[in-house]
């Protein structure tokens, strides 16, 4: 299925949408497609909104943001996000990283809440009344709780999968597994389509099984300017450059026009900037394999 079709079918106005990936494997391709298809009133959830949600906020897709750290990692601010918050046009629901991880964990286990030892002494529960507490039935102590997060659709970028969607990920795993299992629909976007035998040769590497996958999309370089371990490096220059682009509404609009609205697909996006491949292509560092024989 093409990414255009997958977004058209499975991402609707008003949906609770998750594009996960902690620095690694963030599906910018899917974010751009959602912008191109002008989805509106989305509730965007993610630990780290990162540049992709900054772009989606700037493009008017978002009604609300559920998050735990909104910055340009290692660089500075997300300026479209800041303008929206400081201007009062974006609703916020804010946790810490552990709180967001716990929300996805509860959602994935289909429990209504998750228990964590956290938030004592902080102002976070005052800012977010959905952070509550529960009393341990054994020790009597009070522990923090967060409610389950069950997105309408979660989009995961993975290194490889078979045609059914059995997806393997290595390197940083973030909360992708929990987000996918918590979700009603799951779109898996992959760098590389592989034969089922490749997946079956190393079943411990499979993070997301086809049984929970709604659509599989092959989209090489679909995570740029984020990265895919073993495929291409993070485009740090782009992250640094985003500070200047996002500070200025006009420049940001120009970026969207040129690199998002101005292309039809990720393939066109990559043709626009052919030097990316030579600059970012990954070197070789193969793992020592294992034997699954018996």
């Amino acid at each position: 299925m093409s990414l255009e079709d997958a977004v058209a079918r499975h991402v609707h106005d008003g949906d609770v949408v998750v594009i996960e990936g902690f620095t690694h494997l963030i599906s910018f391709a899917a974010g751009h497609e959602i912008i191109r298809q002008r989805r509106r009133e989305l509730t965007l959830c993610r630990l780290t909104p990162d540049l992709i949600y900054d772009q989606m906020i700037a493009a008017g897709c978002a009604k609300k943001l559920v998050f735990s750290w909104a910055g340009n990692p290692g660089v500075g601010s997300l300026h479209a996000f800041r303008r929206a918050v400081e201007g009062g046009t974006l609703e916020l629901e804010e946790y810490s990283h552990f709180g967001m991880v716990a929300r996805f964990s509860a959602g994935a286990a289909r429990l209504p809440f998750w228990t964590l030892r956290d938030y004592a002494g902080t102002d976070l529960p005052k800012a977010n009344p959905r952070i509550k507490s529960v009393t341990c039935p054994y020790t009597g102590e009070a522990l923090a709780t967060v409610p389950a997060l069950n997105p309408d659709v979660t989009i995961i970028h993975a290194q490889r999968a078979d045609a059914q969607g059995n997806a393997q990920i290595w390197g940083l795993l973030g909360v992708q597994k929990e987000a996918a299992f918590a979700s009603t629909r799951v779109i898996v976007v992959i760098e590389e389509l592989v034969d089922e035998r490749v997946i079956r040769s190393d079943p411990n590497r499979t993070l997301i099984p086809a049984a929970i996958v709604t659509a599989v999309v092959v989209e090489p370089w679909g995570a740029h300017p984020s990265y895919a371990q073993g495929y291409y490096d993070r485009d740090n220059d782009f992250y640094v450059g985003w500070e200047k682009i996002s500070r200025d509404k006009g420049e940001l609009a120009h970026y969207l026009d040129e690199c998002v609205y101005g292309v039809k697909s990720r393939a066109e996006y990559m043709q626009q900037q052919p030097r990316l491949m030579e600059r970012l292509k990954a070197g070789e560092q193969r793992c020592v394999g294992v034997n699954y024989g018996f």
Partner: protein
Amino acid sequence: MMACVAARELADGEVVFVGIGLPNLACNLARRTHAPNLVLIYESGAVGATPSRLPVSIGDPALVTGSLMVCGMADVFQLFLQNGRIEVGFLGGAQVDRRGNINTTVIGDYKKPKVRLPGSGGAAEIAIHAQRILIVSKVSPRAFPERVDFLTSPGDRVAKVITDKGVLERDAQSGELVLASLYPGVEVKDVQVGWKLRSRAQLGRVEPPSSIELQLLREVLDPQRLYLGS
């Protein structure tokens, strides 16, 4: 200087929860000097990383390649942090107050912020679960108010605040930050905070960076001066 002082705070073999920037530099400096068996754990899930380049984010691929373990973030927060396995946690913040509380959420009112900061990230739970917190932050009356505008990370476990002028410690009895030592050439009056800062009876004087420390920092760890500034 801040990186050196932070590095010296780490004991060999400790398990450290590391952020990017100066804390990362400090840990890697410590690993190459007195603490070769330091175990670095990044929020992103990389354990025991020995990065071949200076990581530009805590999710840098260089932290993964050649690390001892990579786990999901549920494991990072539940099995390492909440489990109590982290001995030292590094934090920074836009505001640090008299009691060591940190604000990384908003300047001004939460609903109508003057400045919207990134938020907690893992800072709330690092402050609650790491056995010892080290704060790294430049000191000024604005950055060190009497009370933070928003309490993101409680100061209870803060051991030291490593600033650009000297080191503050959290006094066990009063629970407030006091001046513990000064860098070479710095006077007590140079350390300005938003409350009446008390000093330890025995005010220490920090040794300047050794030539080995300086060489490692400038030529090996951050040759492009991404984090060293000067």
